[in-house]
């Protein structure tokens, strides 16, 4: 298995996400400082860094769950401004997977998946259910379609959450520590789904400390510290020849 090779052919030079001189503050607190990042179509980026360094905030700015105050973010040719129409448009293009799954507990698995297509994409119900079943098969959980999220294990819930995003046919997928709330024995089943997504050429930004995952699928690894992208490199270089002292320190800590 060598997903990296397979994926590399998909990398296009056309940028799908462009972030230029972006700053964000929470009140007086400067969370993101002059962030510059260009993501090409089909590119897969893993973001790591100590807790509180602004990783979540960065990817949440990309689908406007958080608002940036300076600089530019352009996703799929649309600049993120206060225009609600643009924001809703971008959110349908960008899928997001959360650390705590955030499935809708009052809806069945199937309803969780069809909700977006039916209400946002205006897909007919029958067709939405077919799409949903297709992606449930894909994350190998189709037999649970009629259950409620509360009846599933953490790993299963996270796979459903990934399928829910995929049902919107996004061009970009954002993952915010998708495996860090899981029991260790469930991490692999979720990473496997993400790897197969990578093999299909999905553009992915993944906040994660899973080194194995980064090595096998990422084109680039970014290291963030106190709101800045401090270092950025290929996985091999990043893990074996880190440049910055803080990166070395961080890697030594997560390798324990």
């Amino acid at each position, binding site marked *: 298995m060598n997903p990296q090779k397979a994926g590399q052919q998909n990398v296009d030079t056309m940028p799908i996400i462009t972030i230029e001189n972006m700053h964000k503050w929470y009140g007086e607190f400067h969370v993101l400082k002059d962030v510059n990042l260009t993501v090409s179509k089909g590119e897969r980026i893993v973001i790591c860094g100590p807790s509180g360094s602004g990783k979540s905030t960065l990817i949440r700015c990309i*689908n406007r*769950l958080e608002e940036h105050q300076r600089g530019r973010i352009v996703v799929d040719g649309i600049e993120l401004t206060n225009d*609600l129409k643009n924001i*809703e*448009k971008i*959110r*349908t293009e*960008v*899928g*997001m997977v*959360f650390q*705590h799954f*955030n*499935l*809708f*507990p*009052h809806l069945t698995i199937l309803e969780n998946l069809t*909700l*977006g297509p039916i*209400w*946002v994409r205006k897909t007919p119900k029958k067709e939405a259910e077919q799409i949903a079943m297709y992606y449930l098969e894909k994350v190998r959980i189709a037999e649970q379609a009629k259950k*409620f*999220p*509360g*009846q599933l294990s953490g790993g299963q819930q996270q796979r459903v959450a990934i399928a*829910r*995003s995929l049902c*919107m046919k996004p061009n970009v997928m954002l993952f915010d520590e998708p495996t860090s709330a899981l029991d260790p024995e469930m991490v692999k089943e979720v990473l496997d789904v993400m790897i197969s997504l990578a093999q299909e050429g999905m553009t992915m930004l993944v906040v994660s400390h899973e080194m194995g995952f980064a090595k096998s699928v990422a084109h680039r690894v970014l290291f963030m510290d106190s709101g800045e992208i401090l270092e950025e490199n290929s996985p091999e270089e990043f893990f074996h020849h880190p440049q910055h002292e803080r990166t070395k320190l961080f890697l030594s800590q997560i390798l324990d």
Partner: protein
Amino acid sequence: MATMELTKPQKVADAIKPPVTSIGIIGWMRVNLFDGWFNSILSLIVLYLLSMTLPSFIKWAFINSSWFTTSDQCKAGSGACWSVITANIRFITFGFYPHQLQWRPLLAMIILVLLLFFSQNRKHWRKSLAYAWLLGLFSMGLLLKGGLGLEVVDSDNWGGLPLTLLLSVFGLTAAYPIGVMLALGRQSRMPIIKSFSVVYIELIRGVPLISMLFMSSVVFPLFLPEGVTLNKILRAQVAIILFTAAYIAEVVRGGLQGMNKGQYEAAESLGLNYFQAMRLIILPQALKIVIPPSMGILISAFKDTSLVVIIALYDLLKTTQTTLSDPKWMGFSAEAYFFVALVYFVCCYAMSNYSRRLEKELDTGH
């Protein structure tokens, strides 16, 4: 000791079955009445009090009671005089509604009860039910008020149980959505909507219902243009709706605050707009959390409709009191109030039972 316990559980685990506890009456009593010394003492006290009061109550209410007698016969007897109810049942139930037309409010109430009964099953919540309600409301209005060939009955003559049901069923069903909107308004990012909701809720909650009813009947008409009059029942109805809505709003707000932030984010990141996110994701969960306190408010609002007596509306309680002011039936207030309490209890019990069932049905195990 440690070694003994290490080997033991393995064997025992195979043999253990769930213990058979409550066998027969004795078992039931042990579990329900005499579970521990504190509960046993409580049970004994309660049993003692019951044994003191229950026999004499049964004697009064059933054995020595008179059911279909005149008031004089009642006064001669020693038991309860239920005749005060049976002899006046039509006035208590329908107030001053014309005697020969009282089948009309009766039919209206039957329609209402049937509709309510049918609506409690969530499986029936379809479009056809909405049409049934529209049709039902129209025919109930027609039956009460008259028109289309039916003799017109002025609303001043409406009273008794139909009035109580009218005020509460419409009061509560209209107050709930308004309360939900106020709760959402209070969380709104738009300052005008937010401050309107806050001011409204706090103002109304700072005023007792009785004074709102009073204002609606005395103060409000002063502001109406000359010659325009608003039906007294309608004014009371509006006061009840506005009042209850404020309380519902606060309960719903509690439910909204209890929601996990992740639910909003997941809804937003799917591209749902505000109204879709609220309607499909947030409210179904938030309202489910607040079923018990909402039902508490609805039940107390139902009982509070009896305050309309102060603006001279003849609801069930008032018609009963009026009966008691008849010299013939004076002195049988215990029986009459017992009856009214029973009617209120049946309605309230049905409501709280329904809320418990709804809660269970909506439970998805999270």
